[in-house]
């Protein structure tokens, strides 16, 4: 194994081989794993801009700036390697029972080939993780999650007739997101996904690779996630890139994805909320009601983990809400104008905790934010104390203007800043359930 060199495809520095400090089994690629698509993504990642995602090397951006990748997601199509997701296959006569006990949504109502987005909670009703749950057959499900959940699944499956398998490494996954995603799939998969409904699954083949296609994603746009076995990964990548060429498909990294998901108001674990089992103090934990997942909590279904606590919380009303903030352009202009500058905009999504005020009192904190190139707005996702969280409330968010902390007027809005019809719609079908 020769030392890995990042750079333009085909361009290698002149000179003798590097003398490695340690044998090859200790290189970065061994510390962080690479996904089944790595041979393609590495060759394309001109920026050499990688980050860690669940122990995998993931491209932050392929070019030095993520702009082109972002606009592909919104204007043509972005192809994103999402293989690092954790995936579990849950099978058996008690599979539905187990999952209904764990997640907040009603699994009994999940049709075959339907996908549910759902969080799951601890006994105290605090969110541990969130992900998608797909019914592959009557008694077979696949759960995706951001964090490892094997032990939680196994602990809760005691006494049930169910097999739980970590299939994280057995499935490679690509997200094809953007307005041209359907057209690309039509070409690549021969139309099997043309009529695929929102949060539904279908099966097919792409470039000869057997795939499952779900109409899901993390961009709030028209989009699909395509699942295949690792040995077919490169075939799948090549076929999608070939079919996508005329539709301007662009490999996209996590920086572009981050702007898109903030625009879509999609919450990110470990950024916007702390998983309850990782919180070292109680105050860091959140219930589904407090982080915009209240709609997923089906209190009418029988006992599930955290139900009692969530019933009580709903009765007294949550203390926090997760909402959108639109920072006033006029406020930005006047604050920056006072020091002789035009507004400085965060082109990359930020993920620090930023105080939010009602007058001089802090009533919340924003956890993600960015300039939306599409909406031409400075937007943020924020945790707000309920008396101050109603849509339309006027608050202010801290911004740092030329080294000084200022408060910029901001308005509370629903967190789905961008929610196009094409995300859910199906031109080929009359029924748009």
């Amino acid at each position, binding site marked *: 194994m020769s030392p890995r060199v990042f750079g333009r495809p085909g361009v290698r520095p002149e000179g003798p081989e590097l003398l490695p400090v*340690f044998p090859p089994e200790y290189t970065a690629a061994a510390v*962080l*794993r690479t996904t089944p698509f790595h041979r393609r993504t590495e060759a394309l990642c001109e920026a050499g801009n990688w980050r*860690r995602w669940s*122990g995998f090397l993931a491209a932050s951006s392929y070019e030095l700036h993520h702009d082109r990748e972002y606009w592909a997601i919104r204007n043509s199509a972005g192809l994103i390697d999402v293989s690092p997701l954790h995936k579990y296959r849950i099978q058996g006569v008690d599979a539905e029972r187990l999952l209904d006990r764990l997640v907040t949504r009603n699994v009994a109502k999940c049709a075959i080939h339907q996908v549910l987005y759902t969080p799951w909670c601890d006994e105290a009703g605090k969110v541990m993780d969130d992900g998608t749950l797909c019914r592959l057959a009557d008694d077979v499900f696949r759960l995706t999650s951001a964090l*490892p959940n*094997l*032990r939680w699944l*196994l602990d809760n499956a005691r006494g049930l007739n169910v097999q739980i398998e970590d299939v994280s490494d057995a499935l490679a996954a690509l997200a094809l997101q953007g307005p041209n995603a359907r057209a690309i799939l039509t070409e690549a998969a021969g139309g099997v996904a043309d009529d695929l409904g929102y949060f539904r699954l279908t099966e097919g083949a792409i470039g000869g690779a057997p795939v499952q296609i779900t109409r899901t994603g993390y961009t709030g746009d028209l989009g699909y996630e395509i699942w295949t076995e690792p040995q077919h990964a490169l075939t799948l990548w090549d076929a999608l890139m070939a079919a996508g060429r005329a539709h301007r498909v662009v490999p996209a990294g996590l920086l572009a994805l981050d702007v898109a998901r903030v625009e879509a108001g999609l919450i990110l674990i470990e950024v916007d909320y702390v998983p309850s089992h*990782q919180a070292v103090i109680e105050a860091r934990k959140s219930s589904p009601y407090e982080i915009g997942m209240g709609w997923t909590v089906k209190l009418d279904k029988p006992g599930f983990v955290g139900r009692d606590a969530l019933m009580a919380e709903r009765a007294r009303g949550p203390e926090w809400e997760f909402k959108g903030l639109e920072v006033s352009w006029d406020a930005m202009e006047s604050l920056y104008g006072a020091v002789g500058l035009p507004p400085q905009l965060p082109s990359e999504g930020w993920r620090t905790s930023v105080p939010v005020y009602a007058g001089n009192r802090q009533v919340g904190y924003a956890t993600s934010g960015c300039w939306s190139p599409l909406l031409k707005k400075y937007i943020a996702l924020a945790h707000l104390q309920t008396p101050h969280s109603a849509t339309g409330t006027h608050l202010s968010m801290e911004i740092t203007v030329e080294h000084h902390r200022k408060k910029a007027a901001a308005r509370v809005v629903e967190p789905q800043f961008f929610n196009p019809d094409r995300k859910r719609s199906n031109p080929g079908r009359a029924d748009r359930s």
Partner: protein
Amino acid sequence: MSAHACDAIVIGGGHNGLVTAAYLARAGKKVIVFEKRHVLGGAAVTEEIYPGFKYSVCSYVVSLLRPEIIRELDLPRHGLRILPLESTFTPLPNDDYLVRWADHDQTRRELYRHSPRDADAYDDFGRLMYQLAVAVKPILAMIPPDPTSMSPKDLLGFLKLGKHFRGLGHAQFHALHKLMTMSSADLLDEWFETEALKATMSASGIIGTLLGPRSPGTAYVLLHHYMGEIDGAMRAWGFAKGGTGAVSESIAAAAREHGAEIRTEAGVSEVIVRHGRAVGVALESGDEYRAPVVVSALDPKRTFLSLVAEQHLPGDFVRDIKRFRIRGSSGKVNLSLGELPDFTAKPGVGPLHQGAISISPSFDYLERAYDDAKYGEFSTRPFMDVIIPSMIDPEMAPPGKHVMSIFVQYAPSDLRGGWDEAKREAFGDAVVDTLAQYAPNLPGAILHRQVLSPWDIERSMGLTAGNIFHGELSLQQLFCMRPAVGWADYTTPLDGYFQAGSGTHPGGGVTGASGRLAAMKILGGKL
């Protein structure tokens, strides 16, 4: 007063004695430290026994050294550099291995290889121990109140303590209860299924203790080792550049800067008592020194039974000190090597040589090692915690050569028939032979070997029974019972006589906490 007068005398230039001296000097006291040996540091020393090769003779890693001491004495300015110790490698008899790396994801992958379930559990366990260590940490920096006293100060101390524990969540409180009562094996069995992982983790629960992983009480010792902290990160272990002696040297430098006088090769033979009060010390040389404050940083047996004539102390106190458990359980082997060990489980030279190497394949292995000691033998197949300091700090050995530090357990102080040179070397042979099972090139790579049994540690370092903690960290010897009820606040029944060694709260390891709290007590509660 004679010409030899000062404000305070510290007996013993180990790290705790030096810490006390530094704080007293910092407060403007005229302090003199007497160290019997030619080097400072006690069990925290670096010595060049074989030319060009530096051994951290006894203590060999840094983690428990209290961050407030590093801050307050500004030890980095006095030369302290703590280098990261990256990983723990456990080679297994079947030529597999287990590594816990510095990198979280890398460790997760490695654990996952052995048990996917343990990979999840490991994070949860680490978080719980972190929470408990945070919960228990304030106690480390507290002068233990006296449970038999009705004084407002002691009562207030217990009130504060009660309030602190009420603040713990239910889950943490129950976990703490378990930790205080269980064996480390039982505790770890509740969490994990990988034998090598459990055994290696349990090793922290037996170090310095003449108990096996299945003995109740060892879970607390496990927590004690979790309380180490570097740069705010709990459970971080490091290596002092220059060896552990560099820790002592940096504390000594801070003490000297504040005006303390430190004498080596100046053993104290006796504490001078006049009218029920300690008034000074007599040296082995016959010189006498006077001071209103005399501090012993030696272990409780030496502090009260060797340095002070028995008639000066209350009978029940003497009885308590005689009962204080201070059995030696460990030995140390230091090697100079011509080449690095090549492990059959993971051949070649890799980052694992920069971390700890733990010979702890299973609970049964460790418990069998303990069985030997229980019946008065050293372990023929001992637990070992090995590091290669020259891979972390290249100045520890000539270029291309290495030093290896091997902490070995069990080596009971009360060996059947007693220790002698032949038994010590047989013990050294067992260590090398055991390691050679995992790294066959090791015996041929040895250029020089130093073997220390508890007998040697007692003779050269002055630790009673060679116990590295100045007394076992068993529950009946902790907090307000360390070393005896009523005398856990660094005072002694003898006016003017104070104790500052690891035999006082919060106990063993290179923490400096005892020395600092003793100084705090002497200075009236404020440093």
